């Protein structure tokens, strides 16, 4: 058996015996679809027919929200709208088990003597993280669909929907999570502290992006200030203006947030107009291809740093 296969088997063995794996699965597979179904039921029971001509609007909302397709879509979109998002929490918790625990329980010395091939150890752990996240995503999709099917028995919903597109977005979101997983591995490994590493995973990208927002609000990019003059001299003005298109979080959740635009349109909103806090989430100046390439760039950058550090660092 190859070293990589051995590591994958061993780490799966460990992950399946860790309670937090099942807590995450229960939240995404059971709690979220059950809540959506309950909300759909409450909407239908309490609002339908309250006002003249609103019957169809409520039925539309219920269909969009609590049909098998609707719940599966909410199970994709919903976790990407929290702060920090469910996705990054899941990534950090899974990475914490796979990388952080080795540090906190002083297990690196054991792991790396049982399997001295460090590249295999790192690759195997990354593969297991992606497998666990993939199982969470796939399970979320299936559970949501099944809850939706159950809902058809007491709600005015059916099985229609663009299922192929939704599956594609699930798949893309899972692939995009790969860059976040490598980032989480890197932060937890570099910080040598699970808690600090997780805090960095949750807050470092928003912090950097927030700092840019502060700069943009207070100094601005266009007016001629000393700072802007430096950027102009370095011919970085355009890059500075375009920076948000390359932000980590903006691109990371691009597939999961994509259906949100359709939902807003359906409910009468215009993604291009000012929609308050939703404006940031409904960015329509980036394509999925652009986001995919940005996340690939981040992934490769973090992976290079992680491999370099992991292969060199002494184990205490």
């Amino acid at each position, binding site marked *: *058996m190859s*070293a990589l*296969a*051995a*590591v994958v*088997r*061993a780490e799966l*063995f*460990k992950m399946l*015996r*860790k*309670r937090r794996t099942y807590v995450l699965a229960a939240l995404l597979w059971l709690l979220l679809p059950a809540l959506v179904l309950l909300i759909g039921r409450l909407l239908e029971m309490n609002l339908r027919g309250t006002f003249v001509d609103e019957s169809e609007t409520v039925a539309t909302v219920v269909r969009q929200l609590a049909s098998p397709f609707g719940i599966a879509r909410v199970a994709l979109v919903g976790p990407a709208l929290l702060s920090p998002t469910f996705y990054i929490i899941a990534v950090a918790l899974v990475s914490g088990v796979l990388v952080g*625990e080795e540090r906190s*329980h*002083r*297990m*690196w*010395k*054991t*792991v*790396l*003597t*049982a*399997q*001295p091939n*460090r590249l295999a150890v790192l690759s195997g752990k990354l593969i297991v993280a992606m497998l666990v996240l993939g199982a969470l995503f796939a399970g979320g999709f299936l559970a949501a669909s099944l809850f939706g099917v159950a809902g058809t028995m007491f709600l005015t919903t059916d099985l229609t929907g663009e299922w192929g597109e939704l599956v594609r977005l699930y798949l893309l979101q899972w692939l995009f999570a790969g860059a976040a997983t490598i980032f989480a591995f890197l932060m937890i490994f570099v910080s040598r502290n699970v808690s600090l590493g997780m805090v960095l995973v949750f807050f470092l990208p928003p912090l950097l992006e927030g700092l840019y927002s502060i700069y943009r609000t207070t100094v601005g990019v266009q007016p001629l200030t000393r700072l802007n003059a430096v950027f102009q001299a370095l011919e970085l003005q355009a890059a500075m203006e375009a920076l948000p298109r390359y932000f980590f979080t903006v691109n990371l959740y691009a597939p999961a947030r994509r259906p949100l635009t359709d939902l807003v349109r359906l409910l009468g909103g215009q993604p291009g107009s000012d929609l308050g806090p939703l404006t940031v989430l409904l960015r329509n100046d980036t394509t999925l291809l652009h986001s995919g390439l940005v996340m690939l760039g981040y992934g490769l950058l973090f992976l290079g740093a992680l491999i370099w550090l992991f292969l*060199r660092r*002494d*184990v205490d």
Partner: protein
Amino acid sequence: MITNGVNTAIGVHQLSKRYGGSTAVDGISFEVGKGEVVGFLGPNGAGKTTTLRMLAGLVRPSGGSCEILGQAVRGPTLREVGTMIEEPSFYPYLSGRANLQHAALLHGGVRPRRIDEVLEFVGMELAAGKRVSAYSQGMRQRLGLARSLLWSPEVLLLDEPTNGLDPVGIAEVRDQLREVARRGVTVLISSHILSELEKLVGRVLVIEQGRLLYAGSLDRLIRRIDEQLVPYLLLSTDADELCRAAETLGHRLERLDDGRLRIWVPDTESDALIGRLSRLGVELIDARRESDSLEGAYLRLLKQDGRPS
């Protein structure tokens, strides 16, 4: 450098490790033959654990090289090494058996039956189903030993494996290691207590402040400690009488300008020195042991309790 000798299991050549400005291991060299059981002695902080970590591929040397079974570390032969370095660590939420299963999967190629064999070997078969978080220190030590034997390694690197064990536990672990050695496994076992290794190893390496002080047979080390001459400074009411008495007892002596006498006494006889001089009529005003070389002092302390104060 790769050792050519087919009988060398562990080869260390001018190995050193520096952390910032401090040197943990300072250019040590030694070899351990296949099937040999060698003790690695030194006080805490002497560089034993760092050396073992370098041999296990966990720490990169700052200089020199080390090899296992003729291959440079971190080479493929590391798969033939079993280790227990410092306090054994486990996933606390897994049982003892699950921890071994995880290690077996990680290494690959371990028969499922082997887990039962090693658990039985260390006497842990009944407690194997409990979570490790509920284990005592002694149980963790035993489980650590079981894990180090899991893939039937050719080389075993053990760092103070009897730490935290009661005398019965120490004797049991010693018996288990003797059995392991009998099967032809090469064992490098570190300790800071000479007596702990006395009935187990034939050869010892003594390390202090990162440097190798002694490499040779355990018997020779014990003889060397026993025969070591310890310098004493003596002052008596009659210097001539003191000289005659010291000559009568057969000790090498040196007269100092301030009237005192320096004599060298075998360590084994030092406790009886003052009584013997008194019986020969010497009235001593002052008698004190003179500080001797670091090596000599260390070797004596090693025999007494292994830990310099």
